[in-house]
């Protein structure tokens, strides 16, 4: 294939196809024949379809997680919130894909509700925003947190990790970040004004 043809076929092919996310194809109900998305092996497609058909978090857990994700990454003038970027669904998939996350996250959510009940006699999703922040403030700063909150800190670190990864691996995240790659182009080196900024040159 000549370079130009390649660019053309990519524009029509993969990039066009990208509007149909592969996850939709494999989320089909199990009685329908399995669709193996492009680039996957059949065994992988079977495994993915099975995972997507399963549910791990309860509706209450998902609701709690959603609140937490949006505290971690709220909407601002530049981009939307974590839940707007679909982070809770991503985390739901990840804990089925990598079960090592299951107990820390389920247990962490239970820890959070318990902490909330102790302080306010209500579950985390039922307390006020200010009360939620009061708890979060105790577990969001690893270097300052009191020792009795260490498990909460570990949980919040994990939630922060999952939320950031889940957010920045979406179109919304790409836009927020200003990532402009993953597209055919011609690399001609660092832009002139950037070279200047750093006092570097190609000579």
């Amino acid at each position, binding site marked *: 294939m000549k370079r130009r043809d390649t660019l053309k076929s990519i524009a029509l092919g993969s990039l066009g196809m990208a509007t149909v996310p592969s996850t939709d194809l494999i989320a089909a109900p199990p009685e329908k024949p399995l669709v193996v998305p492009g680039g996957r092996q059949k065994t992988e497609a079977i495994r993915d379809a099975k995972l997507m058909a399963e549910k791990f978090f309860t509706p209450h857990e998902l609701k709690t997680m959603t609140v937490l994700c949006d505290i971690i990454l709220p909407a601002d003038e530049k981009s939307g919130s974590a839940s707007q970027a679909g982070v809770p669904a991503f985390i739901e998939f990840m804990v089925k894909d990598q079960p090592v996350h299951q107990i820390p996250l389920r247990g962490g959510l239970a820890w959070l509700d318990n902490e909330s009940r102790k302080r306010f006699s209500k579950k985390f999703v039922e307390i006020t925003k200010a009360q939620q922040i009061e708890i979060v403030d105790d577990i969001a700063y690893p270097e300052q947190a009191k020792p009795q909150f260490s498990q909460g800190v570990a949980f919040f670190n994990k939630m922060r990790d999952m939320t950031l990864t889940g957010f920045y691996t979406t179109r919304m995240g790409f836009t927020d970040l200003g990532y402009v790659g993953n597209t055919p*182009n011609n690399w001609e080196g660092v832009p002139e004004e950037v070279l200047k900024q750093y006092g570097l040159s190609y000579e």
Partner: protein
Amino acid sequence: MNSYQIQEAPEVFDVVIVGSGAGGGMAAYQLSKAGAKVCLLEAGGYYDPADPKYITQLKNPWESPRRGASTTRPFGDFDAAWGGWQLEGEPYSAAPGTEFHWFRSRMLGGRTNHWGRISLRFGPDDFRRGSMTGIGDDWPITYDDVSPYYDKVDKLIGIFGSKEGLRNEPDGHFLPPPKPRLHELMLKKAGKNLGIPVIPSRLAILTKAINNERGQCFYCSQCGRACQAYADFSSSSCLCKPAVKTGNTRLINGAMVREVLTDQKTGLCTGVSYVDTATLQERTVRAKIVVVAASACESARLLLNSKSARFPNGLANSSGVIGKYLNDSTGASRSAFVPALMNRKRYNEDGVGGMHVYTPWWMDNKKLDFPRGYHIEYGGGMGMPSYGFGMGIQGMNGKYAYGDGKTQPSGGYGSRLKEDVRRFYGAYVGMAGRGEPIPLESNYCEIDPNNVDKYGIPTLRFHYKWSENEVKQAKHMQDTFEQIIHEMGGIALGSKPGKEQNYGLEAPGKIIHEIGTVRMGNDPKKSALNSFMQGHDVKNLFVVDAAPFVTQGDKNVTWTILAMSMRTSDYIIDEVKKKNL
């Protein structure tokens, strides 16, 4: 290409080749171009990176439900590897107290679909380190024997690089290298100040088209996903398919070779038997010449498993050397944060699928306390986010002041995290040393007396321990990394691995440059193959992957596999013409 139609291949092929990776693909190409009737057997399935069925290139992370995480593929969901450190139903083991990690890909082209494309020819010294240093062994051939083949491989496959005139990093026929990225310019400058060379890398990527079959690189940085324009080298696209196109190669996928068959009277190979992995039927292919290229350890396994009354230790193994001298590159790495790169201006910095600069070995081991060198590979830049992106931000965001000049306690939540991700993006560099080990007889693989794979083929058991030589080399790597990081104004991340951690020396096998298990040499008592990688005991048996290699230099070995396989193929053609085969 359809394996199911073939019941029993009635004909006798000129050559049967086991494995379609770098070594097997090159042999199939070279032999079928010369007119030989070839049967190419590949245990894995058919693969073509330009077929939408297989394409992962240019997909976005959200097209993977795990956002590219490495749950099922060790290098991530989009990596073009059907395989990994473990294959379902095909186990291996290591003797207690030893360790070896074995990466296999079962697909047309083997591991060349997703390899790093780093293509370094050996230099003259790399063939004679034994006599130069008094430790280790020399090759039975010299650089001059291989260099014409390196030249041919350069031209046939395409490689970019720069002419540097370094004695032990010989220049090849290079396409133009891509310009360094920003962090690579910084590395270059730091290297200059320290007297450490940082030069354009040498990768098997077409920065210019070389023929009508393959396109030119369009800088997506994703060679690991295999290129739908065929602008990077993989054996499947660049060798196996052209070989099939000649009309002289019959490719059979899903053919797991169990044994090389021999005539007990003549002691010559007569072909191979294999399991059709789809039907579990046993099949045989008859051929006048058998070329084994199943990758270093699989080739040793196959020969050791090809036992008979005449060859009780396995085929071509009267020396008992098969399996021994297994060795992998050393590896150690470090990463760093570069504050000067915070809040970078955004532009498309993807570049080619790999580093644009590297550091060849630059020192004299006579003045050091370890006998062999290493090269350094670099990473960094404004790459595409995938699973893992943004994790661990609490380790960074308390240390550096925000736009308003104020710092905030590490961790936290809210809009500030978005600002953190934006300011730290693309401000990291990574460096990894890849070094030459001393091959030892005591590092080996053997047939596990107690285990078979799902096809009933006895599996491998590994015995591998690093020696002090490799540990000291890793220590030197770590010291060098800190020097470079410091010089470029970076802050090394994590703590420097010390003696207790072998200075970060990766476990054997992890660098995926395993070689040496079917040694070549001039002495049939100490080697299995002669200097043309032909069996001392069995003259119509050849091994053309990295198993025959005596050493691996401080160079990744694939370019040498390609050159040596081409050389052996030419020798086979020559010997057939002379009626010696």
